[in-house]
Structure formats: structure tokens, C-alpha cells
């Protein structure tokens, strides 16, 4: 019996081992493919960036298209960024008042709100909002142009598509992000103060004076201007995803989704590096 069992087990053992080896092999292959794709994506993004940079710094310059894109990225994102900033201001105001009252530090409320909005939430919320609206828009628009051969038509007309399509959009994102961040900051502070003053009246003058007491310009400027890097990330990834898409409507959808997801992810990852960098350099 015992012999029989051991024979059976011994008999079944080789195929099981083969199956396991097969599974491990498949997993290793998948992991290798994933790593390859990741590096290939980065490599292609680097080549794309180099082409855009070269096109951007050499004449002719596409001023008219740049102005159109500044309007598209800036003015048209204004209401969204203003609303998002306002909502964040109200939420932070409610949360901060509750927490500070609990710890007996109610007098810290204005400074707490100002620092939370200007240093953390304003820039990040602006970046994510623009990534959603502008990133998806650029990705879908360029992908649609790509699959309908409009980008090829631009190139066939002896016009550099990296210059007219990508460089202008990326430059607009870089230039407009800090300005939109100021909008989100202003609406956040305004609505945060309003939420506070409805519960416990506090003059706006007093709120600002107390909030900015002892603050230096260097405490807020780097946080605002770091959003230019967000702009670069959003514009670059959206343009790359759009201009390198393949495969009809599905490709357009994929480009729009990838633009938002990847831009948002890299925006947050870059923030980790930039926050540390700003702390080291400016404090």
C-alpha cells in the first residue's frame, strides 16, 4: 500500500513540477515584458521630448498657435480650478477649525489654512484638475488627428508637427499652471475664510494678516512655480500619448485615458522629489 502510494506520488510528481516550472516561466516572461515595455516607453518619451525641444527652440515660432493654446489651457480651465480651489478651501477650513479647537490652538487657524492651501493643496489640486481636463483633451485631440492622418497631412505640408502641435501645447501647460495655481490658492483662501466667518465672524483683513504673519515669499513662490514642472509632465505625456497612438477609436480612448492616468501618477511622484528639493534648497 505504502509502496503503491509512493509509486503514485512519484508518478505524478514530474508533470506537477513541469507545470510549476511552466507557470514560473510564464510569470518571468510577463515580468520581463513589463519591464521592457516600461523602459521602451521611457526611451520613446525621451526621444519625443528631444524632438519637441529641438523644434521649440528653432524658428519659425508658432506664436499664434501658442496664444490659442494659452487660451485653451488657461482661460478655459479657470472655472474648474476656481471651483476646485474653493471646495478645498471650505474642506480645509472645516477640518482645521475642528482639529485646532480640539487641541486648543484655534488662534492658529488662519496660518494653518494659508499654509495648507498655498503649500500643499493649491498646487496639487491645480495639477490634478488640469491633468484631467487638459491632459485628456490634448491626448484625445492629437490621437484623433493621428488616426485620421491629419498629423501626417501636416507633415506632408512641410510643417513640423512637433513644433506646431506638441511644443505649443507643452509650453502653454508650463506657462499657465503657475497662474492657475494662484487662482486655486486665491479661491481656496477666500472660501476657507468665508466658511470660517459664517460660523465665527473674522474680518478678511485680520485673517490675511494673521495667516501670513512671519511668512516669507520664499515659503510660497517655489511651491507655486513648481507647477510648471507639472505642466511639463502633463503636456509632454498627453502629447506623446496622442501623437504615438494607433488603432482607430480604441486608440483614441486609450490615449486619453493614458494621458490622464500617467500624467497624474508622474505628477504626484514628481511632487515627492520637488517637496524634498524645495525643503533642502529654500529652508
Amino acid at each position, binding site marked *: 500500500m505504502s509502496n503503491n502510494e509512493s509509486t503514485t506520488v512519484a508518478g505524478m510528481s514530474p508533470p506537477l513540477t513541469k507545470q510549476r516550472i511552466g507557470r514560473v516561466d510564464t510569470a518571468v516572461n510577463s515580468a520581463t515584458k513589463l519591464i521592457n515595455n516600461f523602459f521602451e516607453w521611457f526611451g520613446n518619451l525621451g526621444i519625443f521630448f528631444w524632438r519637441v525641444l529641438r523644434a521649440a527652440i528653432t524658428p519659425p515660432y508658432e506664436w499664434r498657435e501658442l496664444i490659442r493654446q494659452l487660451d485653451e489651457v488657461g482661460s478655459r480651465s479657470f472655472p474648474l480650478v476656481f471651483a476646485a480651489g474653493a471646495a478645498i478651501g471650505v474642506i480645509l477650513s472645516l477640518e482645521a477649525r475642528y482639529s485646532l479647537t480640539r487641541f486648543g490652538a484655534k488662534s492658529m487657524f488662519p496660518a494653518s489654512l494659508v499654509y495648507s492651501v498655498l503649500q500643499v493643496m493649491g498646487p496639487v489640486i491645480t495639477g490634478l484638475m488640469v491633468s484631467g481636463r487638459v491632459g485628456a483633451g490634448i491626448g484625445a485631440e492629437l490621437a484623433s488627428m493621428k488616426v485620421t*492622418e491629419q498629423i*501626417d*497631412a501636416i507633415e506632408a505640408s*512641410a*510643417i513640423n508637427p512637433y513644433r506646431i502641435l506638441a511644443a505649443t501645447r507643452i509650453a502653454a501647460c508650463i506657462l499657465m499652471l503657475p497662474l492657475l495655481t494662484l487662482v486655486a490658492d486665491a479661491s481656496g483662501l477666500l472660501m476657507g475664510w468665508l466658511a470660517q466667518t459664517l460660523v465665527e465672524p473674522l474680518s478678511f483683513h485680520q485673517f490675511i494678516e494673521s495667516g501670513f504673519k512671519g511668512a516669507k515669499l520664499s515659503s510660497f513662490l517655489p511651491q507655486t512655480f513648481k507647477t510648471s514642472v507639472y505642466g511639463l509632465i502633463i503636456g509632454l505625456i498627453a502629447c506623446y500619448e496622442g501623437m504615438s497612438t494607433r488603432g482607430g477609436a480604441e486608440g483614441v480612448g486609450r490615449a486619453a485615458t493614458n494621458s490622464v492616468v500617467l500624467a497624474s501618477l508622474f505628477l504626484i511622484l514628481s511632487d515627492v522629489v520637488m517637496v524634498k528639493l524645495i525643503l533642502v534648497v529654500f529652508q
Partner: protein
Amino acid sequence: MATTYDSAIKTVDAEKEDSAPIVFVKELQKSFGRHKVLNGISLSVNRGETLAVLGRSGTGKSVLLRIIIGLETPDSGSVCINGQDITGLSLDQMGDIRKKMGFLFQHAALYDSLTVAENIAFPLAHHRREMSRSERGDRVKQLLAEVGMGGDLGKMPSDISGGMQKRVGLARALALDPEILLLDEPTAGLDPISSGEIDDLVLKLQQERQMASIVVTHDLHSARSIANRLALLDKGNVVIEGKFEDLQQSDIPFVKEFLKQS
């Protein structure tokens, strides 16, 4: 002081230049993955001549045109435009070559966010910066009149038919007065009447402008009416090249089958 001998040499040189092929494609090879699309194609087109490239779908006709205008890079072989090898040129270097070419895409590829007039003005605005806005407007009207669409300036591409889109695409391709015209399936997807109108238009423009044209098509009737020479492609190779009569007299089974089915 130029002698009679010098001027005679100049005349001979000019004649040579005229007779030299303006487009010369030599042993082009192109694969996408494992699929070989072009397998060593050689073709040439002279000034004032129209070459029709025929073949079944997927035989690399459109890829050939895209390589000639530099939208695709060949795996090997060369493309010479006016004697200059353009394979391997950068995007900006290609710009100067492309200004001499007009390209009509299979689906017209009009810019869908611009009006008909803006589509045609687009290359002019970038390459004829010396033109004033009114001059550009006049040129657009003239080009649209040339393709029989004088009254549709303000329409959007989505508001006009496929045949009209092809006409606008043709007007855009002609905007920079090209020496070479590349037409990718100009009559594909059109009804017989619209196809005939496009053929007549291409023929008229060809006679007026004396460009070197390459027309990619699977429409034998269209090719016969607009081209001086025909080249039939199969499996990435030129099976036969010559006049329509040469194709008719050919004993090659594929040529016979193609003519029979067309």
C-alpha cells in the same frame, strides 16, 4: 561672354534635366514586423508624366507613396527627388523637399477643426508668409475654383461629401504649386460619377500644370484615363510596367487575372 557653344551646352543640359526622372525610386524594401510589404521596387517618373501604381489591397501601394514623401522610412533602397537622395534626411531637411510635393490622402485627411478655406490656407500661412491675408484669401478662392468648389469656403469638412473632401484635399495639395503630385486612391469610396469628375479634374490639372504625378489606385478604368504609364504591383514587386496596351498584351497570369477582374 557666352559663346554659341556655351549656350548649346546649356540647352543640352536643360534638356537632360527635363528628361531626367524627377522621382526615382531604387530597390525599395519595407517590412512591418515579419510582413514584407515592398520587395525591391524600382520606379521613375518624369516631369509632366503620370504614373499609375495598381495592385490588390495590401500590396504596398500606399506605403510606396508614404516613403516617397518621407512619412515612412524604407528598410533599404533609395528615393531621389530631383536627383537628391532623401532617405535619411531629418524632418527639417525634408521640409524643403516636401514643399515641392503635394499629397492627396486616401480619406482626404482634412483638418476637421478648420473650415474648407482654412484647410487650404494652412500651408500658405506657413510657407508663404510674405502673402497678405487678402492675397491668401484670393489664392484660396482661386484654388477652390480650380477644383470646382468655389462656393464652399466657410463649410466644415464634416458638412461636405466624400467627393468634395477629395477636391478640397486636392486643392490643399496644390496650394504650394508642387512639382510632384502624389495621389493615394483619389477615387476610392466614390460613386462612378464623382470618380469620373475626380479623374477629369486630375487630368485637367496635369495638363495645365505639367507636374510629375504618381497615382495609387486599384481602379483600372481611372488609371487608364489619367496615366501615361501603369505599374502593376504584386507581393511587393512590380509585375509589369508600361502603357495600358502593354498590360493587355502581357502573358503574365497575374496581369491577365487583374485585367479580367477589373
